[in-house]
């Protein structure tokens, strides 16, 4: 069972990754006995499995994903939501209200209007039908405060980190509340706009350098440096 690249080697579509008794995992495909890459990314060989961690991809819905979307249309008994994927999602009234929907009296725009951002969960999706969403769970619903950062959806696991190490570090160091949508939208909501700025800077750094090692430490260092600079500026002001 030969393999043709080092672990974490950069591969392009069509590169032959392995031959023989391997399982073809994400961003790879099998043709006969051979496994090839289908996207640009870093190859990862595990015991029986070959996968490519893509450096650039778009979001495809998957049931149970937390996503951040934008209302694009208000219909008679549903909303159409753009969740940054190839398909438009629908949010049905029964998934937004706790009681039955009364078409004569209820005004849907009072709940969510066009342009509103919502945090939602994907409840159905397959090849034949567009995704549908729900907001009937704690933590879901309209976004009222904070800033949105857009990143490549494949970098989301890197922002979260192994067992949430990266995201916990970000929250602790910046003091911001961070909601990560699987579709590549991240909501940053913090005490001051300065904290938010630093958190957004850190997220962009993670996206840029996601394929390098020792990233968590470098990001921590950057945040501390940024904060230090801010404190220094304050203290010099006082002296002045």
């Amino acid at each position, binding site marked *: 069972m030969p393999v043709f690249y080092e672990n974490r080697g950069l591969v*392009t579509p*069509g590169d032959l990754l392995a031959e023989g008794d391997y399982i073809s995992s994400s961003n790879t*495909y099998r043709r006969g006995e051979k496994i090839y890459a289908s996207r640009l990314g870093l190859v990862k060989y595990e015991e029986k499995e070959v996968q490519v961690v893509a450096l*650039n991809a*778009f979001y495809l819905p998957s049931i149970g994903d937390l996503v951040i979307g934008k209302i694009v249309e208000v219909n008679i008994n549903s909303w159409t939501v753009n969740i940054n994927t*190839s398909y438009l999602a629908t949010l049905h009234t029964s998934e937004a209200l706790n009681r039955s929907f009364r078409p004569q009296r209820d005004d849907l725009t009072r709940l969510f209007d066009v342009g509103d951002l919502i945090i939602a969960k994907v409840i159905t999706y397959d*090849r034949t039908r567009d995704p549908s969403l729900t907001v009937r769970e704690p933590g879901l619903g309209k976004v009222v405060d904070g800033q949105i950062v857009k990143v490549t959806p494949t970098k989301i696991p890197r922002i979260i980190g192994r067992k949430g190490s990266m995201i916990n570090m970000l929250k602790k160091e910046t003091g911001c509340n961070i909601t990560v949508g699987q579709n590549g939208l991240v909501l940053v909501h913090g005490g001051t706009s300065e904290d938010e700025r630093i958190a957004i800077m850190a997220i962009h750094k993670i996206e*840029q350098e996601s394929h*390098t090692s020792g990233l968590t430490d*470098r990001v921590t260092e950057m945040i501390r440096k940024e904060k230090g600079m801010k404190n220094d500026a304050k203290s010099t002001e006082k002296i002045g």
Partner: protein
Amino acid sequence: MTQKVPRKLVDENGIRIDGRKLDELRPIKIEVGVLNNADGSAHIEQGKNKILAAVYGPREVHPRHLALPDRALLRCRYHMAPFSVEERKSPNPSRRETELSKVIREALEPAIFLEQFPRTSIDLFVEVLQADGGTRCAGITAASLALSDAGIPMRDLVVACASGKAEGHLILDLNDIEDKEGEADLPVAFMPNFNAVTLLQMDGMLTTEEFEQALNLAIEGCNQTHKIQKESLKTKYIAIKEETE
């Protein structure tokens, strides 16, 4: 009236009009991810050719009725800018451009996993900014990079190169004069890891043996271009990696 000076396309030493050897490619420069507003893009310079390729999608199909229930719709527009040639070209799509749009689409279709994205469309724009022969080939090379840059899963990169015949010599990667004055032109698009040809056209006259030789020459050119293509795709990420390490 200007009189046309007779020129030799290939001199007695086997050197071509632009100083190349018979089986030499023009210098190629490729940059990936040049446009911010497209999902994926690439810019290629091959000799005097300058071509931009941009990809959008997979996204909702407009008009709706064109959507395919079982796979994505690949749409392609090959277009030459009015200033891309010596005499201003009308910006309206010509018969030639419509045909090239079709052959470029068909050259790329087998490389893309279209069946993974039913009811969507992938829109590809190949814009020729400056033309000097072999634009369909350079266009295909750039387009497959733009597709990969957009994160669209592909079986293989598609690479294209032309060969042909001028003054009795088989030559690789024809430029505009060689294309127009020469005897034959044979553009080939190729998937290197599959060893599969996805585009094969011929204009002019070749004997059966010449055709076979020319095809092998073109495939050799494709393989050379493929190496440059792969490197250009990796460049951006290698640069970031080196910076941090």
